[in-house]
């Protein structure tokens, strides 16, 4: 839960950086690899080593524990540390408030991305162009493609 996914849409409309059509003859096999597996063999940008993921999780847990203990220390109100009554009444439901605020943010992000969803027309044209070039390249090498 405490790992908010980045709002989808940062990496849309970006084809030319991933689908570089190999032009040299030595990389002809890469075309088939690309066409076969879709994304190719390039490592996904989100696939960090497991150690880094653990560190991120540990960071979140650490921050949560810190905030939680601070909240508990203030909410339990030890004798030496008595916040004034209105502050205390605002403090008690603070975790629920943070949860609701996070939910509001998530909902607003989903709504905004839904409202401003765009078609990537030039990226689609670029992808079609890449497919056409790859087909022509493969056909030139004597591979018989299924259609036509």
């Amino acid at each position, binding site marked *: 839960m405490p790992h908010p996914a980045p709002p989808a849409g940062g990496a849309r409309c970006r084809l030319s950086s991933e689908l570089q059509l190999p032009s040299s003859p030595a990389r002809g096999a890469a075309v088939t690899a690309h066409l076969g597996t879709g994304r190719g063999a390039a490592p996904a940008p989100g696939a960090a080593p497991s150690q880094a993921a653990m560190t991120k999780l540990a960071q979140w847990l650490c921050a949560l524990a810190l905030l939680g203990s601070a909240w508990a220390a203030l909410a339990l109100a030890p004798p030496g540390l008595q916040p004034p009554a209105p502050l205390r*009444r*605002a403090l008690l439901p603070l975790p629920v*408030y943070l949860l609701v*605020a996070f939910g509001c943010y998530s*909902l*607003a992000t989903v*709504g905004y991305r839904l*409202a401003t969803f*765009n078609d990537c027309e030039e990226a689609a044209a670029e992808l079609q162009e890449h497919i056409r070039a790859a087909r022509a390249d493969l056909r030139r090498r004597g591979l018989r493609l299924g259609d036509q």
Partner: protein
Amino acid sequence: MATATDQLVGFGLVAFSLVLFVYYTLWIIVLPFIDSDHGIHQYFLPREYAVIIPVAAGLLLLLFIGVFIMFVMWKSRKHAKKSD
């Protein structure tokens, strides 16, 4: 482009979440600092509902998600059995 319905639903979601955030912030953060005989207090439920309602809504949401996932898995398994 997003259709008109998409835009309506999306900006509706944004407006709903903004209204909810402002109302809940007023309820939780601002209201304890206002005198209890002030007239603004009649627009808010008693204070314990500020915790009960979100918890109940979250439990309902989790229940709904669980039922939905169960339904989808059950349906896909029936589909796979039929195709065997």
